[in-house]
């Protein structure tokens, strides 16, 4: 039996296929104009990878901001629950997840079955999210992928506001006008984001076994600075941390399938 998880976020679309408790295909790519177009395309890619047809999928679960707009999904779960179960699938010792996605950050505490016990999300402000990093990298004149590399070269982070993406951008522009080194500005950005995430973690009781997921987890400088800010070393994951939402959705697809087989209502 094959189960699919599909995560349509604000910046990237992700899909994972599970068979017998193993990931057999996964893919992520930038989102397209509509959630449906993103879902169709990313699903097509994982099916092609696995050499399968959509009819061979036993059940599909969707998550992410586009989760309600995917007609071929049989059920949906919030990305909070999916990141919880996905990271738990990837490493059973995980109990707290810091997820930094395109437009939100969340801290999720899970139990010994991977189910959500508590969570906190950033409010409407985008500061500290993937989208703000994208804007700040552009302002700094570097590729998003290079922002972390730049920051890692610095030992002297420059002060950058962590209150609001707009103020952060103004600070970056001012530092550039002052002729400051871009490495140190980049470092200031990652430290600022780390402090913001650290303040979010203060709103829940963190449990040992803390990991980081989401697209921003691939920025080595942000990861380092968050570890320093909250005084932990992140628990490693066995799968790509950007895929945790889709992986969790695939796990929920399997759970839902078994529930339906046992006669539970959908």
């Amino acid at each position, binding site marked *: 039996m094959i189960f699919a998880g599909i995560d349509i976020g604000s910046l990237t679309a992700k899909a994972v296929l599970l068979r017998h408790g193993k990931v057999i295909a996964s893919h992520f790519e930038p989102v397209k104009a509509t959630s449906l177009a993103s879902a169709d395309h990313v699903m097509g890619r994982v099916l092609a990878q696995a050499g399968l047809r959509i009819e061979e999928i036993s059940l599909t679960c969707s998550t992410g*901001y586009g989760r*309600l707009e995917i007609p071929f999904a049989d059920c949906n*779960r*919030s*990305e*909070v*629950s999916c990141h919880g179960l996905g990271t738990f699938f990837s490493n059973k010792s995980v109990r707290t997840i810091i997820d930094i996605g395109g*437009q*939100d950050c969340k801290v999720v505490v899970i*139990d010994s079955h991977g*189910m*959500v*016990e*508590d*969570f906190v*999300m950033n*409010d*409407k402000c985008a500061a500290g999210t993937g989208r703000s990093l994208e804007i700040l990298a552009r302002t700094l004149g570097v590729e998003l992928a290079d922002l972390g590399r730049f920051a890692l070269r610095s030992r002297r982070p420059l002060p950058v506001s962590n209150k609001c993406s707009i103020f952060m951008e103004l600070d970056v522009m001012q530092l550039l006008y002052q002729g400051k080194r871009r490495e140190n500005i980049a470092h200031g950005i990652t430290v600022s984001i780390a402090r913001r995430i650290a303040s979010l973690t203060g709103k829940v009781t963190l449990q040992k076994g803390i990991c980081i997921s989401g697209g921003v987890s691939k920025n080595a400088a942000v990861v380092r600075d968050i570890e320093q800010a909250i005084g932990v070393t992140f628990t490693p994951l066995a799968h790509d941390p950007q895929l945790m939402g889709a992986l969790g959705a695939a796990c929920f697809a399997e759970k839902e399938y078994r529930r339906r087989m046992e006669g539970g209502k959908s």
Partner: protein
Amino acid sequence: MTIFNEIRQLAQSTSNDYLTRARHRGHPTVGYFCSYVPEEMIHAAGAVPYRMRAVGSEGTSLGDTYFSSANCSFVRRVLDKGLRGDFDFLDGIVFMNGCDHNRRLFDNWSYAHPDTGFNYMLFVPHGRSEACLAQYGNELAKLGRFLEERFDTELTAEKLWNSVALYNRKRALLQEIADSRRSAVVPISGTEFLSLMLAVSVVPVEDAIALLEQALAEIRAGRIHTEQAVLRLFVTGSCLEELSHLELLESAGGVVVADAICLGARYFERPVQVGRDPLAALGERYLRNLSCPRMMDDVAGRIAHVRERVSDFGADAVILEKLEFCSMMSGESYISSHELRKFDIPSITLTRELYGGGVGQLKTRIQAFYEKVINRS
């Protein structure tokens, strides 16, 4: 067409035919803010009390010329509507110092002076003590004198008791409808109940009673909102008038079965006790009814009320609603969530702008919260 269709239309309109007909019969319309303004006094003066709201608001651009963006979206939207002429059918407004934003609304309204008749400020103490009650009594007497002069009438005890009887009847009907949601099969959704509240707070009380009797007859005839096992929710907080927001809560897999909001239990719980002095009876009821966070000395009472109702109505979780920049609810939601946790009652604070956006994130937060609550069971 059921009575709930008409109620929904009334709930989504700023004015209505009931008010027009009352005006033709010689009853002016007087707007009022907050749950501490005794409608009975306005009614006894021959006017129709109209609960101010931002329903149908198109934005805040005019309101923002008087308020800063750090003021709550309720006052910005209501003033905006006033400046656009939406409330020109009013003959006056009784403001109240519900919070600093509302207090400032009176200043800005008086200064901008839209064509809405008189502006009167009722000062209500922020506590429930005997001294506060005495002061509130003085303020009600002052309001009474103002209304007598304004409408060239006398607020006799007979007139006041007659109004009290009508409003108590209205409260009793609302209470019975609200109580129908105790059962496992919920006859009316939270969205429908809010529609009802919005509708009956902008029509003459006599018409409101007729509407409520029809709604109750439909419920008694076996109306069913949902038989499905969904999460039963208790909603509390500050200003909440958006049907779309409750629809969002309920479409994610919940049903609101009870509340402690201004357009809800705070309005209809506890009748006015008939006695010797109508103003004293009104003062006692309005100042010491189920309080809102502006009353600084009753935090424990409000939390006890939530716990009691959660238990009575079999609610699975509590939604703490807060408007951005609502200083009253900021402290209250923090305290409430901590206190409720002690009693193992799950809660979530939802911060929003009145008729604001951010629906995607709210949906995620609500769904994740429901999933968390379901995981516990």
